[in-house]
């Protein structure tokens, strides 16, 4: 309202520069086919990050019926903690191999985020489990902004350049199509994590307890499942995934910032809804579909609207998809749950 610096305002390109760099590469490319493949790759990369984040949303929603608004900000904390660790390690042991350094940073970020997820659930959400419907949601919004503020206090308002420990020199598997080693790592890393999560949920004892709790709290607790522990565990796992996603996101764009979690958080939520909220496979599918749609949308919007709209509108696609899905197919692509639940 008053003309102050306001949080929500980030230069669109810095905040979420998916389109900007890749898209210029694309425009240099010659053929239609190369452009198409390039957009597909970009979409896959960002889509797999969305999918990782979406898993956190969907697990929590499946169990509690709560949209954990602060999930995107956990991602931001993960990215910034990893950044802090890397900077520290570079100062302490400059000779360390980049891969070891990255692994240590990832580990620290995961642990911090897991603790954060646990604390959030314990302090804020657990007490509101039986409260009127709006209360947990409003609290979650509050937690999200609180995390951003704390990050702003610790890391300042500036954009931090993210150290590129994995090479970013683009490879050219096909003439005119570029992919960087970071992007390859992101695709394979997130695929591995997703498979791991599916195994955890479907093959282990705690996974069975999670599914039981999602099905029905009370009955699960009657069957001897410690539902409080299961819910806390769900938050912790989701936060761990978000930490990894945060590091991936920041490495891909080379930038980290206290507000960086907001947009990917929202988009991942969209992805979760698109796939069918509460459904793990759906979240993965939704993430990838959303990433690809967004990448194609940003690439072709200028031609489609005869130059009236350009790639700075790319954030709109996620919201449009969200609206359309909720109106026409609220259960999502794979979901059975109805939007009125909760």
């Amino acid at each position, binding site marked *: *309202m*008053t*003309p*102050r*610096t*306001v*949080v*929500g*305002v980030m230069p*669109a390109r810095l905040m979420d520069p998916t389109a900007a760099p890749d898209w210029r590469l694309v425009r240099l490319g010659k053929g239609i086919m190369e452009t198409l493949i390039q957009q597909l790759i970009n979409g896959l990369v960002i889509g797999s990050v969305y999918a990782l984040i979406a898993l956190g949303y969907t697990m929590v929603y499946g169990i509690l019926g*709560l*949209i954990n608004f602060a999930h995107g900000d956990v991602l931001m904390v993960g990215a910034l903690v990893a950044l802090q660790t890397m900077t520290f390690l570079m100062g302490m042991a400059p000779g360390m191999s980049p891969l070891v350094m990255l692994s240590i940073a990832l580990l620290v970020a995961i642990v911090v985020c897991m603790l954060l997820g646990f604390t959030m659930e314990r302090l*804020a959400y657990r*007490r*509101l489990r*039986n*409260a*009127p*419907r*709006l*209360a*947990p*949601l*409003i*609290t979650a*919004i*509050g*937690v*999200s*902004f*609180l995390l*951003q*503020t704390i990050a*702003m*206090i610790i890391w300042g308002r500036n954009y931090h350049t993210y150290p590129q420990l994995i090479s970013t020199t683009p490879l050219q598997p096909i003439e005119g199509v570029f992919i960087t080693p970071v992007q390859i790592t992101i695709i394979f890393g997130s695929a591995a994590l997703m498979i791991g999560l599916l195994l955890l949920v479907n093959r282990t004892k705690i996974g069975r307890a999670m599914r039981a709790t999602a099905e029905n709290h009370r009955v699960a607790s009657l069957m001897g499942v410690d539902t409080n522990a299961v819910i806390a565990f769900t938050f912790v796992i989701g936060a761990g995934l978000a930490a990894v996603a945060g590091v991936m996101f920041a490495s891909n764009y080379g930038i980290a910032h206290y507000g960086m979690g*907001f947009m990917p958080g*929202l988009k991942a*939520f969209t992805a979760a*809804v698109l796939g069918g909220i509460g459904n793990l496979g759906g979240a993965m599918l939704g993430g990838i579909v959303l990433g690809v749609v967004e990448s194609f949308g940003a690439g072709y919007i200028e031609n489609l609207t005869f*130059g*009236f*709209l*350009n790639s*700075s*509108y790319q*954030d*709109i696609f*996620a*919201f*449009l998809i*969200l*609206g359309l899905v*909720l*109106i026409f197919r*609220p259960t999502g692509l794979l979901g059975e749950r109805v*939007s*009125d639940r*909760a």
Partner: protein
Amino acid sequence: MNELAAAIPWLGKRNPTAARWLILIIALVAPVIAWQFGRSWVRILDFALLYMMLAMGLNLVVGFAGLLDLGYIAFYAVGAYTFAFLASPHFDVHLPFWTILPLGAGFAAMAGIMLGFPVLRLRGDYLAIVTLGFGEIVRIFMLNLNYPVNITNGPQGINMIDPINLFGWDLSRNLQIGENFSINSLFLYYYFFLLAVAGSIVFVHRLQISRVGRAWAAMRDDELAAKAIGINTRNMKLLAFSLGATFGGLSGCLFGAFQGFVSPESFSLMESIAVLTMVVFGGMGNIAGALVGAFVLALLPEILRDVAVPLQQTLFGHVLLDPEVLRMLLLSLAMILMMLLRPAGLIPARARYSHDHHLSNKLKQEAAK
């Protein structure tokens, strides 16, 4: 209007008449007191009044009808930009204030219905996210519609908007009375906004006890039951959205004219959240709550700015938390702590129309089981 008297905690219950007079006196004298601390404080009070209107409008949607709207600031933006388009050198159009005001309100109401139609089937958390998306879409368009045709002037915003002109009386000029006495323009705006807020209070109060208000309350507490007793929930939801938006549009117009400058930066998600916090903090579903919430949360950050910054200077030698950080910290903590400790807000709505009453009874029954 005992509703309003509730704004003063203790007195309001014992002696509502006295409380009402006290409120009136405070409202009239406030800018004079603020003037003693500097003119910027009068300006802050002016903004506080605008926030009050916004909070009342959002309260219609969130508190009365139970629809959580996180994109509310978009309507404010529609109002402000309408004013900016129709009364500034940007398009070189200068329509009179009284023509633009209904237009701004109308456009905002239309935007409200446009948002309302697709989200009719959604409830609770989904609705919140979709409205948030709507707010962001509006902001993205404001930011980017300067190319290829310059409509909104992009991130720079629109400058030199005409001030409010009431039938030839320009509120932006100090009013000269006699030789050596003049009333500052900030006071003129204050009392004009105060009139607007007073009008809104009367309107919202009448609305709340009307058929529509009762239908909203029924819908909020149990949509299915409301449908079953013959309430047209679709129309009621649309009405809530459009009326809430109208308030946003009106205060947006006033904001544009008062500030003389609009830019997308003023309509970020943070502002939507700030207005929501005001409603939540004061007490959902309750006029006095929205007013007190807006007043406290509009003023508190400014007071913090004046107190906390010098305090940090003396304590630590430098500023650790700048005012903007303090404001965010305050808003987010207010939201979380209120929900955890006092979910009905500072001034809980009267039991008759509140859903917390209904829900707390339900919870008690659950606990008893």
